[in-house]
């Protein structure tokens, strides 16, 4: 079993599917000989050839739209958008076509595509390279949105996303690409979609987070454990549709919920989680639900990015607030 960084786990999952499913094609800007600007497709073109791993012209709407056409003809395109801030030209194709081709043709056509994109800040990247935009996709009917928070979940969830017969937006936190290597068995075993992962069990408060913020969340939980606060940490993993069963069960136990995400607060995915939990579990809540999120401003250039992103201190303070309420 090899120790893999998250970006290597992504590569491994892509390679596995390219190897085992002839319908799978990887495409995007610079994914070929260059192996992707983050090296997520490193070596794949060399190994599988130019008919399986394709550089595209520089056009994101094209990448999404062409993937839809390919998918409807029976291929399984796994498309890469180079940086998070350049995913917006795909919105039209994703919402107007990818998410509705199956239902608007009453099942005649469907779109087994994956749109991979880096996500989030924290790596001192240039402007427009550090956005967290999962909420845009989460609001789109007919589309699954997934975000891994570790190498092994990146591997297993990406396999699941590629194999799923419907469109999946797969957002990869760049901040995690190269830290915290993990043993990942390259055995083609997928993880379930539409399912949260409980990363830490606890009785006092439920923390729900996803992507890179899982790490600040786990750190806060560890710090608070020393002070006698027993946190349960849930990795949302599939951002949409949300596995409320797991979350509600946890909140039923702890009576307290803190949601942590990097994206702006207003109409973020945290709002959906807080609203649904407040709706379904209000009587078991011992304190108001707290959301600890990015501010309602664009991700600033990197001198201020750490002032934008929720820090361990902010997460800790938010949990304390809920514990003291």
């Amino acid at each position, binding site marked *: 079993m090899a120790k893999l960084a998250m970006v290597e786990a992504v590569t491994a999952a892509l390679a596995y599917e390219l190897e085992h499913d002839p319908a799978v094609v990887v495409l995007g800007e610079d994914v070929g000989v260059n192996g992707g600007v983050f090296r997520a497709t490193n070596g794949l073109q060399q190994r599988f050839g130019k*008919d399986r791993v394709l550089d595209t012209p520089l056009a994101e709407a094209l990448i999404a739209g*062409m993937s839809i056409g390919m998918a409807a003809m029976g291929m399984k395109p796994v498309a890469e958008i180079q940086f998070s801030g350049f995913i917006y030209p795909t919105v039209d194709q994703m919402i107007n076509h990818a998410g509705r081709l199956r239902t608007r043709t009453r099942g*005649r056509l469907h779109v087994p595509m994956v749109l991979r994109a880096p996500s989030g800040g924290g790596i001192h990247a240039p402007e427009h390279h550090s956005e967290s935009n999962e909420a845009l996709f989460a609001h789109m009917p007919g589309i699954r949105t997934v975000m891994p928070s570790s190498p092994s979940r990146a591997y297993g969830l990406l396999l699941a996303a590629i194999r799923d017969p419907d469109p999946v937006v797969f957002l990869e936190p760049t901040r995690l690409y190269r830290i915290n290597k993990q043993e990942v068995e390259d055995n083609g075993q997928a993880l379930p979609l*539409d399912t949260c992962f409980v990363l830490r069990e606890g009785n006092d408060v439920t923390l729900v987070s996803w992507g890179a913020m899982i790490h600040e969340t786990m750190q806060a939980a560890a710090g608070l454990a020393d002070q006698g606060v027993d946190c349960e940490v849930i990795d949302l993993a599939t951002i949409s549709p949300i596995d409320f069963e797991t979350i509600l069960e946890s909140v039923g136990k702890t009576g307290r919920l803190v949601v942590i995400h990097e994206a702006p607060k207003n109409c973020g995915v945290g709002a959906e989680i807080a609203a649904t939990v407040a709706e379904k579990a209000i009587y078991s809540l011992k304190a108001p639900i707290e959301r600890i999120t990015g501010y309602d401003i664009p991700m600033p250039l990197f001198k201020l990015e750490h002032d934008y992103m929720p820090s361990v201190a902010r997460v800790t303070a938010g949990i304390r607030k809920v514990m003291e309420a």
Partner: protein
Amino acid sequence: MKTVASFEIKYLQYLDSDGRLTQKKLPKFAENPDELLKMYRMMSFVRVFDTKSIALQRTGQLGTYASCLGHEATHVGIGAAMRPEDAFFPMYREYGAQFWRGVKPHEVLLFWGGDERGNNFSGPAHDFAWAVPIATQCHHAAGAALAFKLRGEKRAAVSVIGDGGTSQGDFYESLNAAGAYQLPVVFVVSNNKWAISVPLAAQTACETLAQKAIAGGFEGIQVDGNDIIAVRDIMEYALHKARSGKGPTLVEALTYRLSDHTTADDATRYRDKREVEEARKQEPLIRLRKYLTDMGAWDQKKEAKLLEECSAQMDAEVKLYKDTGKPPVASMFDHMFANMPENLLAQRDAAVAEEQQHG
């Protein structure tokens, strides 16, 4: 300054508006009167379909409907040139092409009647449904063509777009990609001179729309879109080229939108009646009928009989349409995902319960 590149746009026509041949040599299919008659019959049916559909809308039995009056040669010509295994990516008025490919008229009515089942049609299962968001279908056609190419299949994709649609970025992006990958795709621009109220001259400074292909690095050809011989011939040429790995073609079909944009539109607000009257003389059925009549393959009696047949066929389709009940509420959930998530199942149950309660 030295010249580093030069380009020409060619124009093709066989049959002028008076039904006279403008070229000596005809394409092979056109030497066979039966083939021409088959196309004439379909064009005639499409016109009957169009008239009756508008009547349905006017009497509250159909939603907004997009007429194809005047476009029959372009649409039927496309359909006749394609093979079943090719894939079609229409905009929203190419009934002639679709009927040729096996879509049933009542299925089209279902769509405009507000029922998704019309998109689950009897044409080739891989053909796309209408693309109302203009120009988005070009990407799908490019993607399908890429799939065909990667799999080594001898198939081509055909997309249709309007003159107005050529202003959209999606159109150019897929042109450029088709050129770069040498894709087996044919982009048809149905230039009917108007995009709702915007005339071609306000849409673009280009003298032809075929020249847009130059930005994709491949061939663009202009064709008389009211001359079905020319349309089918160019389409067969472009499709053959595509299937033989020789890359994409852009075909600009010059036609005219004789109707309002849709039944929701009133073209008298922005369009000179004389322009429409002039265009009416160029329409595609007159000239083919003349040509067939001149060659002795057609007469008034046959025409009358054909119209009766078309009418009867359409009446049967209208009946099928009207006899189709309202789709069940559950059906708007059932095809969202292959693997349905819990929350959607719960919503479906709630919606079904409400339907049962409140109707």
